[in-house]
């Protein structure tokens, strides 16, 4: 595959199709081989972008605005890297996770493949309408993966998720329609110089609608209602993919548009997402602290952690804020995938997922427990994790602009995260009820969870590399 940019989209489309043709439940090897190749391509692309600046590809050779351009700057390359490597971990996990007769396994591989294709296509897209198609690709695949578990709870959650996703993409599409009407193009690169603070009122409306749609898809408070049942109810590998990557995709797009073509309009609304983000941190953390079952706890934690991403919007005048956002995306993605993977281990071992029920199993699954501990460090923003670097940059940016309430929110949110994380961890030290049955769990499950969690902490030592990469801007 000559051009990694294109390869990252075509490969998952290819192996997803192959996995479907091979038949229900088959195709794990095709998927693993494909994702491994994608991981390599993402690495190549990151190196290429780091050395030579933004990578571009004009599909069909036409070039924007007639054709569709693909482009990957540092941010895209970083997220592609994260997506492929995280997917590799989750795929290894999933291969061992699903039992032979599990209905959720039948179409897991093709759906996961299309999901990855959608994510990759989204990260390289540079065209508002093409982005709409990729949003739908991601959204429908995610809904399919949730629904595939097949229980009544999951189907209901999937339906709720679907409506939220459709409302979100509908709002986005309407905004795109208005933008095309005003400017006659949907190419981001072409639009960027055209949109000015004096833009017609319609452009403001369009920007607002698109932002609203993306916010709904990112589950920002108060649009988070769909997330906990969907992420908390899906099988563990699916929850991991959704919480780690899917919600980040719409955030990425929002950030890209905010910093890109809509930058001249953006400052007007910068405090709104931040306020909602703060509310998300408090409400999500509170619900996580109160949750009785493990997976809903983790899902509510996602609601809270997404809040941090939106705190950066009033601070984007300082480079550290952009860095904080990207670092938080990485930290949360890795940590959350690890947590859902670890939760899956406990569910398989004990057949239930109450927090209190961990007491018996935790001492017998030390690797998984460590995974939760390390991932928890990241979520609570404790050093030396990547989550800590994100928090550091966020607070620094807040102080640099004198917006200290944001710093207070970040610190308080970290403490609340520590409360729900240690609520889980302390179970491991409680005296175990004698003779609670603990089923054997494939070691691959435990170790992939651990590897993801360890990555979320170790990334804290490589912040410079990530920051250097994302400095490459279009």
């Amino acid at each position, binding site marked *: 595959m000559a051009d990694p940019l294109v390869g990252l989209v075509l490969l998952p489309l290819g192996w997803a199709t192959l996995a479907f043709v091979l038949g229900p439940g088959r195709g794990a090897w095709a998927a693993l081989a494909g994702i491994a190749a994608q991981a390599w391509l993402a690495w190549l692309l990151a190196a290429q972008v780091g050395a030579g600046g933004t990578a571009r590809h004009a599909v069909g050779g036409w070039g924007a605005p007639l054709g569709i351009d693909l482009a990957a700057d540092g941010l895209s390359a970083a997220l592609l890297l994260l997506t492929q490597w995280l997917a590799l971990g989750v795929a290894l996990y999933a291969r061992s996770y699903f039992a032979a007769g599990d209905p959720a396994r039948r179409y897991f591989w093709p759906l996961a493949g299309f999901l990855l294709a959608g994510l990759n296509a989204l990260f390289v897209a540079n065209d508002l309408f093409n982005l709409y198609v990729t949003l739908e690709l991601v959204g429908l695949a995610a809904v399919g993966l949730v629904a595939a578990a097949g229980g009544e709870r999951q189907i209901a959650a999937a339906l709720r998720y679907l409506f939220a996703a459709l409302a979100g993409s509908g709002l986005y599409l309407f905004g795109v329609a208005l933008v095309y009407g005003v400017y006659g193009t949907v190419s981001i690169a072409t639009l960027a110089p055209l949109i000015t603070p004096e833009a017609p009122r319609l452009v403001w409306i369009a920007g607002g609608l698109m932002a609203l749609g993306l916010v709904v898809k990112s589950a920002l408070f108060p649009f988070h209602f769909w997330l906990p049942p969907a992420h908390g109810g899906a099988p563990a590998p699916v929850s991991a993919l959704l919480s780690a990557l899917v919600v980040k995709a719409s955030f990425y797009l929002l950030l890209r548009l905010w910093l890109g073509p809509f930058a001249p309009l953006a400052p007007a609304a910068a405090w709104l997402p931040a306020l909602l983000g703060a509310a998300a941190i408090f409400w999500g953390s509170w619900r996580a602290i109160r949750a009785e079952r493990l997976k809903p706890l983790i899902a509510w934690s996602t609601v809270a952690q997404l809040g941090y991403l939106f705190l950066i919007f009033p601070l984007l005048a300082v480079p550290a804020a952009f*860095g904080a956002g990207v670092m938080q995306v990485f930290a949360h993605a890795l940590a959350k995938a690890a947590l859902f993977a670890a939760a899956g281990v406990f569910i398989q071992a004990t057949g239930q997922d109450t927090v209190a029920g961990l007491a018996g199993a935790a*001492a017998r699954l*030390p690797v998984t427990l*460590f995974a939760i*501990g390390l991932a928890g*460090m990241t979520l*609570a923003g*404790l*050093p*030396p994790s990547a989550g*800590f*670097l994100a*928090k*550091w*940059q966020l*607070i*620094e940016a807040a*102080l*640099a602009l004198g917006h200290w309430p944001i*710093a207070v929110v970040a*610190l*308080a949110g*970290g*403490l609340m995260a*520590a409360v729900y994380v*240690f609520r889980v961890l*302390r179970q491991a*030290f*409680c*005296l175990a009820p004698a003779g609670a049955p603990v089923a054997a769990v494939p070691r691959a499950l435990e170790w992939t969870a651990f590897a993801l969690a360890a990555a979320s902490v170790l990334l*804290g*030592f*490589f*912040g*410079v590399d990530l*920051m*250097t990469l994302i400095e490459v801007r279009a």
Partner: protein
Amino acid sequence: MSMHAWLPLAVLASSLVPGLVIFALPESWIGLRTALNLLGALVKLVLVGLLLAGVAAGEQYGFRHAVLPGLELAFKADALGLLFISLSAVLWLFTTLYAIGYLEGAPHRSRFFGFFSLCVTATMGIAMAGNLFTFFVFYELLTLATFPLVVHRGTPAAMHGGTVYLAYTLAGGAVLLAGIVWLHHLVGHTEFAHGGIAAALGPQYAGQLRIVFLLLIAGVGVKAALVPLHGWLPRAMVAPAPVSALLHAVAVVKAGAFGIVRIVYEVYGVEFAQSLGLLFPLAVAAAVTIVWGSLRALFQDDLKKRLAFSTVSQVAYIALGVALFGPIGTIGGLVHLVHQGIMKITLFFCAGNYAETLGLHKVSELSGVGRRMPATTLAFSIAALGMMGAPLTAGAVSKAWLIEGARAAEMEWVIGVLWTSSLLNAAYFLPILWRAWFRPPPAAWPDEHIPARGRRETAWLLLVPPLVTAAAVVVAGVFAAADWSPLAWAKLIAAREYVTPQ
């Protein structure tokens, strides 16, 4: 990488690597685990010895790694850091020996020793931190590594103590972080440097710098157990005795006190701190802590709780020494960092011996224990006398320098505080000694695990560590004037690093 870079890293690795390996070991591999523990402790001692020799000769050791643009993990082994490192490395060895004996046959020992090693690693990181950022990283790691040790027993009381511990330390960490980022924002970096870094800012920043100082001291004050931030320390007493030793002498409260030293001397600079009027409030806080801790200790019947409140009081001596403007007070505070460590660890070892051997937990149960366990009680007595500041002990040396320092700084009221504290110390220690030596023993001990065999009053691994540290209390007191004494090293630090010729 030159030796000057890898030596600090090797000091970290000498406990980190054994710790990580120990986690992976099956519970039953006692031999290998013990060997790893001791090997790590001994290697660390050798490495620390190399560092000591090098630093005494004026060598510079350091290592830096950027984690974000403009933000570096920085390690340096300077004289001040080495004071703390040496204390921790030596006491780690004895605590490990003691813990091996103490936990014989107990469950979850791999987990225990794994976190134990991580805890020491974090302490080494705190001691060698070259800037506040690095200090904070290891300060929080220390919290995380000690939590599993505090709740090790898994009883509801242990869980409660651990939860309170976490609540205090994590909240303190958040406050500390706020202060550090603020400082980083103002100054652009957080390096520890002779004479401080904050003085470079103009006078218009004085107000902000005062708030930052408050945040920083409140943050480290939680671990240093400054009143009113001390609430976790007595509750953490539910932990096993080696952990208490670690909390009180080797790592946690010391980390807090050490943080105060670094912040006052190397972040603000003592002269600048004085000019901002920050030292007097610190001295008051320390004085209040000293008196309050001693008063509370008087009324505790639980032996470990009494010792815990004693720690609250004694660690504040270090902060007090720092707050006394002038080299003599500095020396008194710094040397107490070491002296308090060896005295308090002895006391906790002995308290653990009483509990493990005879099931004695309360002061009121100790009648006649001196006859059943004379060696342990002797060690306890020496350390207790040291705490009171009795002549020929380490405690006397610290107190003498602190009193001199107060006089030099013209803060006579501090002398009153110190004398009050000594009297209170006597009031809560002497009854214990009297009871142990002169009251008749009960007909049967509450819960005798380890029967006396000949002259061996308890297991060897429990007995040797307190005897050695008790001996050290005397040696440090008698030979305070020697070249190799903690006092000499404290003078070296004061002479080399802080005090501008006056």
